[in-house]
């Protein structure tokens, strides 16, 4: 563009309008880069694979207030009844529910307490041999525990000797080695890992170094408040859920069924805050871009009105319509680029602040670059309309004396 130098000089001489636009573009770029990045980060978090058929699994709590019942026997009866229900693939009593935000965790060690040892924090689930199938997760090595290996905890005298663990946990405890057959310690109790699970997320999706590490313990220890997990055939979950309260009540009436919820709903509750943040950010950047685009549009219109005489003169002196359009596009681009340079620096700075004060990962440069390009394109779009209007200004305005 031949015209850059005089346009640039002209801008320097009447700075106010340009500075205003520059500031808007800079702030918009800084905000949108970071917001888009945070959105992507949240999306990854929300969409991470969990290993479960979430739409086919549901849970419910049982609060038993009757005292004339042996809980372990009752759990067995309940499980048999549930498994016999049409549409149910498997059902099991379990001590915690994945993706729900509630459960138990502890450090699993290479040596028993009180010896000094490496300890890796993981979630654990106490359940019987139907647990694996109800969860619907896959073993990549070894086998499930047998009915005989399940410990029924009547007096806390016995403890399981085997367990299933996720690959992520075993890789952390025994890096580079095959986890199958290894022994890990829960406190001072040894557990031989007879099966390794591929992908399985624990109750706390947010805790980065715990979410992939879980242990399934063959232990049945139902308290007054215990939970059941049920997996149904596809499309049949709603109909099964409807029958649960009555079925459980028929089996034994002195108890309350509560929190009868699908696993996908539990997860949605757990991630609700992050989903909300993401939505708010999307709204924020949309409105921000719109406001900035309108700002460019409005300010360019103003500039054109202010310079009507000048535009007419240029046309009189021989400027083609395209030259007038390119004048405004170039002028706008100069401001935009200056604003983008400022905005890119601002984006990086803002990213650093967010990273150091809040647990946001480091801003990826790709997002800054893409945002800058998008803002530039948006500014071009916003300026084209007014620029074309300018080009249509009659050259005879130059000779008017008003």
């Amino acid at each position, binding site marked *: 563009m031949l015209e850059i130098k005089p346009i640039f000089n002209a801008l320097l001489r009447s700075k106010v309008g340009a500075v205003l636009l520059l500031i808007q573009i800079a702030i918009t770029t800084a905000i949108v880069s970071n917001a888009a990045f945070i959105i992507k980060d949240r999306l990854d978090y929300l969409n991470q694979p969990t290993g479960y058929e979430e739409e086919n699994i549901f849970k419910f709590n049982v*609060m038993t*207030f009757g005292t004339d019942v042996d809980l372990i026997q009752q759990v067995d009866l309940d499980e048999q009844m549930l498994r016999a229900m049409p549409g149910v693939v498997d059902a099991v009593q379990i001590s915690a529910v994945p993706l729900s935000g509630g459960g138990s965790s502890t450090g699993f060690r290479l040596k028993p307490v009180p010896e000094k040892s490496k300890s890796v924090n993981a979630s654990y689930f106490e359940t019987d041999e139907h647990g694996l199938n109800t969860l619907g997760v896959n073993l990549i090595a070894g086998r499930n525990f047998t009915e005989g290996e399940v410990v029924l905890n009547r007096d*806390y005298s016995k403890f399981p000797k085997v367990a299933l663990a996720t690959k992520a946990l075993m890789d952390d405890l025994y890096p580079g080695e095959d986890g199958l057959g290894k022994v890990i310690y829960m406190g001072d109790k040894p557990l031989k890992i007879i099966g390794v699970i591929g992908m399985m997320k624990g109750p706390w999706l947010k805790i980065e170094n715990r979410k992939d590490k879980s242990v399934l313990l063959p232990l049945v220890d139902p308290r007054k*408040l215990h939970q059941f997990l049920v997996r149904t055939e596809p499309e049949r979950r709603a109909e099964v859920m409807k029958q649960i309260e009555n079925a459980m009540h028929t089996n034994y009436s002195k108890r309350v069924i509560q929190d009868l919820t699908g696993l996908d709903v539990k997860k949605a509750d757990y991630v609700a*805050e992050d989903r909300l943040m993401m939505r*708010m950010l999307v709204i924020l950047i949309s*409105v921000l871009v719109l406001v900035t685009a*309108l*700002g460019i549009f409005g300010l360019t219109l103003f500039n054109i009105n202010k310079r009507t005489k000048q535009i007419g003169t240029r046309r009189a002196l021989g400027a083609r319509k395209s030259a007038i359009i390119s004048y405004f596009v170039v002028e706008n681009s100069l401001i935009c680029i200056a604003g983008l340079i400022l905005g890119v620096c601002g984006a990086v700075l803002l990213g650093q602040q967010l990273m150091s004060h809040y647990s946001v990962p480091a801003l990826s440069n790709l997002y800054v670059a893409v945002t800058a390009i998008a803002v530039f394109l948006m500014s071009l779009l916003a300026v084209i309309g007014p620029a074309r209007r300018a080009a249509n200004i009659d050259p005879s305005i130059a000779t008017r*004396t008003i």
Partner: protein
Amino acid sequence: MFSHYIDLSWRSFKRTPLVSLLMVIAIGVGIGITMTSLSVYHMMSMDPIPEKSDKLFAVQLQSMDEGESWWSPDSMPYQLTYRDTENLLNADLPFKRAALMKTGFSVHLNSDKVKPFLEQTRVASRDAFDMFNLPFINGGVWSKEQESSAAPVAVISQSISKKLFGTSNSVGETFYLDDLSVRVVGVIEDWKLHIKYFDLNNGSFNKPEHIFIPFSLIKANEIDTWGNTNGWKHEPVKVFNDKLQSEKFWLQFWVELNNASEKRVFEAYLENYIAEEKKAGRFTREKAEYKLRDVNQWISYWEVVNEDNKIMVALSFMFLAVCLANILGLLLAKFLRRAPEVGVRRALGASKKQVFFQHIVEVGMLGLFGGVIGIIVAQVGLFGIRQSLSYYDALANMDISMLMTAPLIAISACIIAGLYPAWLVCNTTPATYLKTQ
């Protein structure tokens, strides 16, 4: 003169309806978004009990061995052991103290009148009602004798009373918590709180409990917590008594100290207590560590206002800045285009100050309209937030102070944005614009 300026401003708006509308919308949206995040932030960080938030203190004791750490900012555990809770509660001190724990039962009447339901229950020592300002409608708290003898009594909220008995006058009635029969000794108004400051362990914004039972029932009836139990060393727990004797943390403790000297007395007591326990082999750290935090300190220690909220507030204000830059530009355009009219006014005798003031009034009116639009936009935003998260029901709201703040911010922001254009336009030489050229 002021009303004349209002009239002029209104006419000016009407003359350029599109630009004026654009500006009002820009400021309205900016204010609306800012107020949405600001309102949530405000509710989250509001003092939940301003009358005595500086007199109630949460107690923390560092009973872990040297080298053990916790995930709190200063590595102090958030809760206390049973042993420490019981000891502090029974100590011979003149201060009101509350030991607390969250649990739950199936609530029923052992008949078919009311279907059994699950209800969270708060185990509390008797001073708690007084300390946390919970007013009784009927009856009162259980007596010292009832507390020490672990009598099966309960204080319930008005809603639960109505649900179980159809009336709030239910003192003397009995109901069942699981298989334990309890008698109602008092009915309180529903405890309305935005922030469950006394127990932030499982959801800061969940609702407080509706049923309260004496602290002594924990031991007597082996009632376990529905909250968090955290341990820092390996302690096998086979029977409930093991848990009562262990170093695991599962209870909350609050003390009421009315001035600095009372605080010093209590702190001295804690030092002494730790020294005594040291002799029994506990509190192995060389230096005794404990902490007393009042309500607001406790809330900020727990970082109840989470990062996301703070980020949104910051981003919202940046967005407002963009809207203001926008408006500044539009105002410049608008005012400078009107310069000829200003020239005429000046020629007819208006002083610079009068011209300036006229434009500031116009800008202020813009802010007022924008503020109103902003409130509407904020209400829509807050409604959206309430839809997405149930516990935001109480939080995502604008109280009176926020409703006043909205137009205030709008008007101030517009005036700041309008200072430069108004100054520019009142400084132009009248003659320049009177010529027909």
